[in-house]
């Protein structure tokens, strides 16, 4: 009996003070972020999370909202006045598009900030040995994340003006501890430029460090941030800031690298005509999509242009008339690739650049989006050179390079008589040539998400009001998007943009 008593008492004491900790469970169905970023594959996964959140929504919407706000795009049939992006007078502080852009952007930034907070303290050795001439993968990962963060913040400042600059992953779920004020745009841009400088330094032209992994090297190099993408984004920003020489330098670094070349045919840039033309030699950053279960696709983005294989959005008459030639006398390849005219009453012109032959419910559209391609460098250089000194035969050369390709006689839809190269005889003043460059830029990059920012830039340079006109405004008040009202309710430090109170 005594034995039993001893056993029982011992058992009781053992159990009650046992170290078997049932209350420290770690979940199996989710990632414990406290322990994440302990291996190289954690970091690669986290980075891909950043790509997915960036490319899934904000990056595509940066392009769409640019188009919708511009004078290139109009709503089909029912007129633009029901679309607050096209017709800003009806834009209000509860606008879902503006709110979605804000939310999705900061969602992507949270992923990126987490990565940038954790990777720097990881040991280089975890990432293996770098390929020849490249930095350790650790720094590339950071560079890719910094590029994406710069890309998002640059676009956000363009749409919203001053935005809260958040560079840390939140540590508290208490709303009171997450109040942030809007950071002056210049300060946000300082961070953007610092991020781009880092990316420019550490990113490779080609992702050779990843060459052995699943997808081929071209897909890795086009689908991720590279030195080229970092330089081009910097060039865009320099152009906007009228830092002409710097923007030329960045573009020349890209062109001079020999990493990218213009495709011989204009028609083989966009994959919607032919999947084989994906990741062409002139694409610098291309959002990679793939058909199949569990693969990244941009169906939502495409269906915005097209639904169930039928076009949805209209090009403006203005944009239509910008191109030379007509239905019967085709001259500019880019016209028929950018829009199609449906003859009827009323006549409709549909935007066409990204076609989608799959119905909306059949997920997994395989067509890539191209946020950055080489032609933009030619256009940036032409524009900057013309601003620096007139006349510039170099600038003229860049424009004519693009024009001659657009006159490609091998256009699949039939014979094209072609467009003529420009000469400075026609554009005998800096002003005239500036106008010609701008028109060429519009034709070349139509619906690729540049026009709205271009209009804002031109207005700032020329003191004109083209941007206001494009969105039906009579005062500049609503040129910026509203800060989402729900955000102002939960973050008392935020001040609304003018025109939305």
């Amino acid at each position: 009996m005594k034995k039993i008593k001893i056993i029982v008492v011992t058992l009781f004491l053992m159990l009650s003070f046992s170290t078997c900790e049932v209350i420290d469970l770690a979940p199996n169905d989710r990632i414990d972020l406290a322990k994440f970023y302990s291996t190289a594959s954690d970091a690669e996964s986290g980075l891909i999370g950043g790509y997915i959140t960036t490319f899934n929504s904000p990056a595509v919407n940066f392009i769409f909202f640019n188009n919708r706000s511009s004078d290139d795009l109009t709503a089909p049939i029912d007129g633009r006045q029901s679309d607050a992006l096209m017709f800003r007078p009806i834009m209000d502080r509860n606008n879902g598009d503006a709110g979605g852009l804000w939310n999705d952007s900061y969602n992507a930034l949270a992923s990126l900030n987490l990565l940038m907070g954790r990777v720097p303290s990881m040991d280089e050795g975890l990432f293996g040995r770098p390929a020849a001439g490249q930095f350790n993968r650790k720094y590339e990962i950071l560079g890719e994340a910094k590029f994406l963060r710069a890309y998002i913040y640059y676009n956000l400042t363009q749409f919203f003006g001053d935005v809260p600059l958040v560079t840390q992953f939140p540590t508290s779920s208490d709303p009171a501890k997450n109040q942030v004020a809007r950071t002056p745009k210049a300060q946000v841009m300082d961070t953007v430029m610092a991020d781009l400088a880092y990316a420019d330094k550490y990113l490779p032209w080609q992702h050779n460090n990843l060459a052995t992994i699943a997808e081929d090297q071209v897909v890795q190099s086009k689908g991720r941030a590279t030195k080229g993408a970092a330089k081009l984004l910097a060039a865009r920003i320099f152009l906007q800031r009228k830092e002409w020489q710097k923007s030329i330098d960045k573009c020349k670094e890209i062109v001079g690298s020999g990493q990218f070349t213009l495709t011989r045919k204009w028609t083989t840039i966009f994959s919607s005509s032919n999947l084989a033309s994906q990741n062409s030699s002139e694409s610098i950053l291309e959002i990679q999509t793939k058909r199949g279960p569990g693969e990244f696709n941009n169906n939502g983005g495409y269906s915005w242009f097209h639904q169930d294989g039928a076009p949805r959005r209209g090009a403006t008459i203005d944009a239509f008339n910008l191109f030379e030639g007509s239905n019967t006398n085709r001259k500019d390849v880019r016209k028929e690739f950018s829009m199609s005219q449906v003859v009827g009453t009323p006549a409709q012109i549909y935007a066409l650049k990204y076609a989608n032959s799959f119905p909306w419910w059949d997920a997994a559209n395989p067509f890539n989006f191209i946020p950055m391609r080489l032609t933009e460098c030619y256009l940036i250089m032409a524009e900057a050179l013309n601003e620096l000194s007139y006349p510039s035969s170099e600038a003229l050369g860049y424009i004519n390079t693009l024009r001659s390709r657009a006159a490609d006689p091998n256009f699949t839809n039939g014979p094209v008589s072609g467009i003529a190269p420009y000469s400075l005889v026609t554009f005998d003043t800096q002003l005239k040539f500036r106008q010609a460059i701008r028109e060429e830029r519009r034709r070349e990059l139509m619906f690729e998400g540049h026009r709205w920012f271009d209009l804002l830039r031109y207005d700032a340079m020329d003191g004109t009001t083209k941007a206001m006109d494009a969105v039906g405004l009579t005062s500049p008040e609503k040129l910026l998007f509203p800060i989402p009202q729900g955000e102002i309710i939960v973050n008392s430090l935020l001040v609304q943009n003018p025109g939305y109170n």
Partner: protein
Amino acid sequence: MIRYLLAGVFFISFCSTSFSQAITVTGRVTDIQKASIPGLNIVVKGTSRGTITDADGNYTIVCELRDKLIFSFIGYKPVQEEVMGRQIINVVMREDQQELGEVVVLGYNTEQSRRDLTTSVSVISAEDILKIPVASLDQAIQGRAAGVQVIKNTGAPGGGVSVRVRGTASFTGNQEPLYVVDGIAINNTFSGTTGPPDSNGGSRAGNEVVNGMAGINSDDIESITILKDAASTSIYGARAANGVVVITTKRGKSNRQTFNFDFYYGLQSLGKRYDLLNATQFASVVNEGMARSRPGVPSFIKETPYNTDWQNEIFQVAPQLQAAISTSGGNEKIQYFVSSSYFKQEGIVINSGFDRFSYRTNLDYKINDKIKVGTNLAFTFSNNLRLRNNGGANVQDNFNGNSAFGPSVIGSALVYSPLIPVFKPDGSGYASDSLSAFQNPVAIARVGEIKNSGIRVLGNIFAEFELLKGLSFRTVWGADVRDENETNLIAPAPGSPSASGGTLTKRSFRELLWNTNNVLTYKPTFSNTKHSLGTQAGFEMSSSKNDGYWTSVTGITVLGFTTFGASTRYLTPYSDADNSWGMRSYFGRAFYDYDKRYFATVSARVDGSSRFGPDRKFAFFPSASLGWMVSSEKFFPANQIVSDLKLRTSYGITGNDQIPPFNWRASGRFAPTNYIGYNGALPNSIQNESYSWEQTAQLDVGLDVRLLDRFNLTVDYYNRQTSDLLIGVPLPRTTGFGGALRNVGSMENRGIEFAISGNVLKTNKLTWTSSFNISFNQVKSIDASFNSGLFGFSHIARPGQPIAIQLYQLEKTVDPATGFRRIKDLNENGRRDEGDLTVVGSPFPVHIGGFTNNFSYKNFELSVFFQWSYGNMLINNTRGFVQGVGKSNISRIGTNLSTEALGRWTKPGDIATFPGIDYTNATLPNLSDAGVPTDQNLEDGSYLRLKNVSLSYNLPSAWLKNKKLNSFRFYMTMNNLLTFTKYSGFDPEVNHSGAFTNIGVGIDDGTYPQARTFIMGVNIGL
């Protein structure tokens, strides 16, 4: 008491017998009211020989001339008679006040006489349970315990039940009480749902949940105690805020061999139907509507020879049966209880049903005077054939064409065209209606299938040691193991955009929940015997490891196969979940009384849980209660009316830990898609260090009175203040997140409970016992400020106000000019806006209750049980289906309507309550009711229900004696026999989303109706 009795029996049996001079003694044992006492123990003192009285209180025993007979029975003072050569000894037993009322099981192996209680509990005994054959034991509680609301969410076999003890005290947390079966807290929560992913790839809540309690055979239950106030529940700490249901299963008794066989068979039928248009009326309605939208087409629909009543086609009279066998007995060393049963219920809707096979062994073994060991082991196999879209996902989804679960059988049966036959005339399959977006309801029920198969093992082992005199130790180790598999085949919808075959989803869930609790009990003896003290200290560990996943394929073109191989399309992303948790707890309790006059109990518990964030990892839950037996005081006048009067009060703190596990951690998930060959990780939540239990502080003031020496009256007032309620708090989106669950809300439940029971009449032949309970509860939201206050479509929690239903009000008649319904423009601004919303009532009842009367006359027994709910409003969306005319939606062409449509608006100037039929996509008026919740089908959900009537006949004991039977009983029982209600739907006991929401209750969305059941059975005891 039973223990004392057993101890007595043992003691007696050990004594030696003296030499003999045999004599046969007979007699009858009665109480003071001369009612016979069956089942009473008679033992020859000093021997193990004994017998029990028969149904009439008669006994026969062989003993010796100078023997002493001991008569004993629970609740009565034992009587000792010296035989002294008498051959007839009739005995009158007197009730023992001390032992009166049952012994109440309080959990952790603690029992207390009801008279000594200082807390608020309700007890349901085996006899109460046996009266009503129920599929699930939680239904046995309904109407029988004050303060406990039980709603059968749906009438579907195996369907979920909502049990609410003293109201609802959480916005988001699980509100089901903690169930403790033989000392082991089991998982009574729902294990998950089946459904294809929504458009974001996430899982989708919906469909009907599995009732966790349906796996327990209610025939095995000895007693159910519902602990309600904080003083009784706080010993269960962080799991106790919703109340605790302590279930004790039957055990064998020494020297008392029983064998019981029970069989019943019954039929269930639908109580009430909707009155719908017949084929001719339907055709004229459609043609009238089409004439408006396409003038010049005189008769769009041609009458067919059919007049299908779809309600007849899907509802059926369905059988229900159970066969149960049990045996128990033992000797002083070992006692056993073994049972097995098979229950089968077909649903009153075709192709639905539930069956269950269960088995149990309970064993007790006494190793020596100091050590006892034992085990309880039960396992259950169940199959549940469920009906798609019942009581879960919004049936209205079907109208919008986006139902993830496919269309509902009941909803479709109400709206499907009566002009269509069930089968195509050429016999080539199910007929379909080209006009309608709906599917043939019979086809939906027959072609698709949702089948849930489960195995559950519930068991424990225990050992009890007497370490010193008064000090004992008991250890219990138990487990609740569940394995569930579900197959859901949804046949393709004809003409749907994704006409690419059926969808097959399979779900699997497995859980191992283990628990050990170890309790030291010390009962010191005092020299002053007026002091009485019992103390307990213990610790407990519990953990659940579980995982579940579902995955689905599309493109099942060859129907009838439920294998993934039958698919032509790829696997959709699967979803899995880990809801594991672990707990570690310490607790202590002390009971003290002085002279059975002054009582006090204190308890405290510390719970550490894996669910809680590091800042609040351990929770402390204290409680205290006091009781004062006023009637024992000298100043209390002796009287005939009040024999006992006890005042008691308690206060304590409990917690609700039924919060999503792991949520305090900063977590991430893998993105549903790859990018360039890599799996992406996305942050999912921000760290919340103080994420923790929801806390309830409860005050209880009560009164226990014994009246006229026959009735027990209990009255309780309570006030439950719940704080730290988890609410989804919106975060600045600059964090990257839309919100986080935080402990910020508060709520209040206040109420009064009143219960009285006792013998109304007790004569030699007739006894009448009665019990009545009524309880009032009001639930108020104190602070839900981080939320819009809206829960669902129409339920609102406003600070400081009772939770209510808020809707737009409809004008009584439709617009005479246009025939459209319109809402009341309460703020008279000419348009519909928030100013026109009105709070129109409460989804919670003002009071609920039950009233049971048991009569026994000679060999007949009759039990009549009423149960009610008063003052709750129901939103009858089901009725809305058959009132939803196509005034704005072309897709409603071909939708059948209620016969209310016979009084419809037909031309301008008509004053009508039912709108005109119009399939044009007409511009809606400013005050249109389209797309907003209105009071169109807000109905009074009060009801009084004759829940059960049972009549039984016991064969006379004389007859039984010849056949060597102990008892033979025929019974007939009727459930849901009569319902008095103004509610127009199938059934007022309905709670469409009961399992998913605590606030948004009282919605009838095509919910599976309750059946009316007639059962005949026989029970034989050997």
